[in-house]
């Protein structure tokens, strides 16, 4: 059994994963309520919260595993993320691995997201996962979160290759910053989604950040700037009256850009499945649009379960097991990397 720890941002999470059963149990302590008051994650508060929460969560894992019996490996997120937060997780994991006398692996958080759409496939029939997973490869994955927007391929050998990334803001960030410009709260994405449900997607014309037709890279900073220009021309009353339409049109611009680039990558060919993961994967408009895209291309669609879209230890445990690139490290050699990229191990 594998024990995983995740502390890259504002959630403290621990999971137990058994390759022959799936995720045995996972625990998440969220700090959203705390940071909501500040309009975003405050790094030193987050670090202190991790310090407070990590031991109680490990206590629960200890009870669930009869004093860590059967733990054969400890996995921990080593990046990307907030440096202070990553440091708490890796220090805890090092101590635990040393005390249990088991190997330690450092996991790239983004690779956790990359494999997360397949956690449910594994859980259905753990013993047949290898064959069923192989039937989905090569796989095209889209990771959309507050910090990242990435298209990648997962080859038949389970190797990850980055196909495109954002040139500026991440999709989730475009939604959060859009919400800020609109005077809404935090986290902005879900607030925009709720208001957008009552608005018209074609009420305002926002740029799609598509760039040259043949390019897979994303760009969302122009969208943010165009919203700013638009709002500067409107009175507060006009903005309030048009809020649902503004949210619907703005969100649609983000979704369109994501779907178009994913379609373009699909056309380039050979994929047998499409995956969606990361925090923004919970956006229903995006989920539905991407599922339609997959259906049209006649490939299967896998979206990470809501519990595995945000920061969670379940995906870290799963990637530590499923990703062939993950390797054991000696405790002292595990270093955090706040700017770790998907392509790096």
């Amino acid at each position, binding site marked *: 059994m594998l024990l995983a720890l995740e502390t890259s*941002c504002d959630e403290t999470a621990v999971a137990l994963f058994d390759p022959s059963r799936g995720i045995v149990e996972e625990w998440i302590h969220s700090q959203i309520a705390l940071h909501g008051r*500040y*309009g*975003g*994650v*405050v*790094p*030193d508060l987050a*670090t202190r919260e991790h310090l407070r929460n990590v031991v109680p969560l490990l206590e629960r894992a200890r009870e669930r595993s009869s004093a860590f019996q059967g733990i054969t490996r400890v996995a921990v997120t080593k990046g*990307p*993320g*907030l*440096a*202070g937060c990553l*440091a708490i997780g890796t220090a805890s994991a090092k101590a635990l691995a040393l005390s249990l006398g088991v190997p330690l692996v450092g996991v790239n958080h983004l690779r956790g997201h990359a494999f997360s759409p397949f956690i449910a496939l594994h859980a259905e029939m753990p013993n047949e996962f290898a064959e069923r997973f192989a039937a989905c490869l090569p796989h095209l994955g889209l990771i959309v*979160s*507050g*910090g*990242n927007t990435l298209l990648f391929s997962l080859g038949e050998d389970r190797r990850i290759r980055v196909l495109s*990334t*954002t*040139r*500026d*803001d*991440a999709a*989730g*960030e475009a939604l959060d*910053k859009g919400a*800020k*410009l609109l005077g809404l709260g935090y986290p902005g994405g879900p607030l925009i989604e709720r208001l957008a449900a009552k608005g018209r997607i074609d009420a305002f014309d926002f740029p799609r950040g598509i760039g040259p037709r043949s390019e897979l890279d994303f760009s969302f*900073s*122009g969208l*943010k*700037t165009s*919203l*700013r*220009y638009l709002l500067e021309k409107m009175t507060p009353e006009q903005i309030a009256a048009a809020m649902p339409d503004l949210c619907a049109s703005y969100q649609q611009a983000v979704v369109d850009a994501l779907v178009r680039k994913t379609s373009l990558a699909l056309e380039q060919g050979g994929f047998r499945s499409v995956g969606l993961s990361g925090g923004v994967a919970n956006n229903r408009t995006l989920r539905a649009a991407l599922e339609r895209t997959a259906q049209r291309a006649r490939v299967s669609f896998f979206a990470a379960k809501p519990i595995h879209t945000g920061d969670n230890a379940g995906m870290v445990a799963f990637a530590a097991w499923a990703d062939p690139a993950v390797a054991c490290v000696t405790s002292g050699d595990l270093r955090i990397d*706040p*700017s770790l990229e998907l392509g790096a191990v």
Partner: protein
Amino acid sequence: MSIFAELEAGIVATSAEQTRAVARRLGQALPQNATLALHGNLGVGKTTFVQGLAEGLGIREAVTSPTFNIFTLHRGAGRILVHLDAYRLENAQQVEDLMLDDFLVPPYWLAVEWPEKIAEWLPVDAVHLRLSIVSAGVHRIALERRPGLF
């Protein structure tokens, strides 16, 4: 005219590419271990500016917004560019908690968005730029304060 003299007068950019071009020239002129404070509101082009700065420093890695992780690291040409977004920081003590010093290894260049949030933490020789929007599509970049060394 040096980029500093031009920036002192204020440079107008009418596209993201022009903003990057100004930043590229500044990147080539900034000495090592310099701190660049980028003042300006949401959407004025601060991240775009840092993209050009990285190019000027010979760093080819893609520079994306640092907002989510507070700071990002970009390496290349034997240099490191640290890109800090101080928006969610309130005081100098919070900067100390970021473990930033672990990554500010000479020769480094530090670009700070929302520098007014951590004014007392910034070195006295920081170069301060103000980015603003004159009208839709027309952005102005001007040197606000510069140390005596140039």
